[in-house]
């Protein structure tokens, strides 16, 4: 019936990269890169050992969060962060819409397309903290610098994702509305908007979440919010207070996540 010894077949799992020279070259390159990385790492073991032994006290403080001594500062920081988050998200939404329309290849003229894409690229390339440094230098310390920072990075984020959404819309619906003699604005309102609205609301809520997290860090460079409180705690080596701030932040992020997943479920 079955003659297993008849002939020996060879089988090997097909490789992801079919060309074997290229495969080995890529692998060798990767290996070489890793080797270089480890050579270039200069790690001061002595300093680490010293730091670790010193940091035991800090660690102990981290497990004894102190909500009381800096409570007012924590509350103020959180309120500042939340207001910054909300205001900048609203600004971000409003400003991102024209950029999104401009950056959607299927509905926008070439020149506007390139300008919008350039704004998006710049906004997305720089980490919030870098942008915050810039605004702090320009208009001084305080939450306004934070608002401008978060607004600026929201624009790139929202406009890019929204533009992709617009590029993916169902053309037949747009054509149907256009065929009924609608103007450009009417096409936008009746054919484009209904298709992208649910996703846009989802993105906006998601961005709200991101902005809150970011608001906690731009305070480190003086752009207001809970980050200021946190930074002050670190500067004074009050790790118990810092731990309290972090716990409050994690709590708010958790609530925000529950809220945003609830909203997204509801609209999508």
């Amino acid at each position, binding site marked *: 019936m079955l003659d297993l010894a008849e002939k*020996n077949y060879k089988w090997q799992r097909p490789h992801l990269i079919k060309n074997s020279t290229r495969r080995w070259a890529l692998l060798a390159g990767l290996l070489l890169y890793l080797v270089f990385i480890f050579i270039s790492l200069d790690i001061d073991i002595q300093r680490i050992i010293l730091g670790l032994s010193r940091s035991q006290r800090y660690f102990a403080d981290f497990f004894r969060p102190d909500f009381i001594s800096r409570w007012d500062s924590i509350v103020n920081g959180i309120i500042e962060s939340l207001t910054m988050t909300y205001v900048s998200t609203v600004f971000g939404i409003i400003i991102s819409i024209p950029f999104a329309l401009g950056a959607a290849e299927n509905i926008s003229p070439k020149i506007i397309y390139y300008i919008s894409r350039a704004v998006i690229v710049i906004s997305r390339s720089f980490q919030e903290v870098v942008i915050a440094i810039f605004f702090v230098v320009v208009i001084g310390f305080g939450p306004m610098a934070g608002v401008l920072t978060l607004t600026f990075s929201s624009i790139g984020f929202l406009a890019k994702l929204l533009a992709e959404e617009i590029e993916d819309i169902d053309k037949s619906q747009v054509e149907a509305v256009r065929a009924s003699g609608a103007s450009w604005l009417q096409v936008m309102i009746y054919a484009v908007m209904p298709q992208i609205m649910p996703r846009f609301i989802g993105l906006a809520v998601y961005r709200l979440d991101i902005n809150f997290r970011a608001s906690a860090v731009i305070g480190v460079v003086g752009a207001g919010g809970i980050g200021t409180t946190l930074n002050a705690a670190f500067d004074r080596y009050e790790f118990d207070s810092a731990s309290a701030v972090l716990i409050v932040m994690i709590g708010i992020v958790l609530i925000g996540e529950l809220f945003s997943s609830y909203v997204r479920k509801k609209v999508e």
Partner: protein
Amino acid sequence: MLKISELHKEYPGGDLALKGVDFELNEGEIAAVIGPSGAGKSTLIRCINRLVDSTSGEIYLNDNEINSLDKKELKNIRKKMGMIFQEYALVERLTVMENVLSGRLGYVSFWRAWLRKFPQADINHAYQLLDRLGLKDHINKRADQLSGGQRQRVGIARALIQDPEILLVDEPTASLDPKTARNIMSLITNLAEERNLSALINIHDVILAQEYVSRIIGMRDGKIVFDDSPDKLNKDTLTTIYGEEDWETIERNSSQEKNNDEGGEDIAGFSRKKLQMAASSSNKK
């Protein structure tokens, strides 16, 4: 060879899927299990292989009582049971060969499995099976690039490479077009006969079942209500299995289509079409 007695299954939530199932399957015997959806066909097959644990009763494969096995023994007994699934259940992103060889996972070590270093005999066996099943040109294709019929043939190869003693087949043709379905059915039964395997085949297509197997087990509501040769199936027995159907209406509706239905010869007083409709109307899956 396979002996089942007083098998009960209650799902959490109180759903009674099996209410005392008894039957015996001899070596080399092929039986088809028919019945409406919800009759417990699928649960029965899953209990034999213990993908689902039964609530009470006994399942003997040769001399092993399956419900009393520990984890290791269960793995060993599972190697003896080849399963074929309705939706093929291939690992979509693996190649045809990897899918077939996954039937040998019970026999090879974890490291061999991880590195895809299967014994030469397994690879030879896989090649022979794939050749026999007409898949030789697709060996290194990913499973998600195949057609339904091809996928099911990979599924068959995966079950056979286990060197099983019994095939457990769950609705092998439900996702296929009629022509491919016949093809798959004949492959399964022929291969089982060639290797003298017992087979238990869940199938909702009564005609296909009649055509290819010598024993039909009819299930309804968690119990076996019919167990006999296919020629004993008639209006009354079908009613026992599928429940009261308005056979007359079905007859009238299908009379116009009777002429262009190529397989329209009479079986036990019913046209092929009518039976199919009757069966599928009470079996939505």
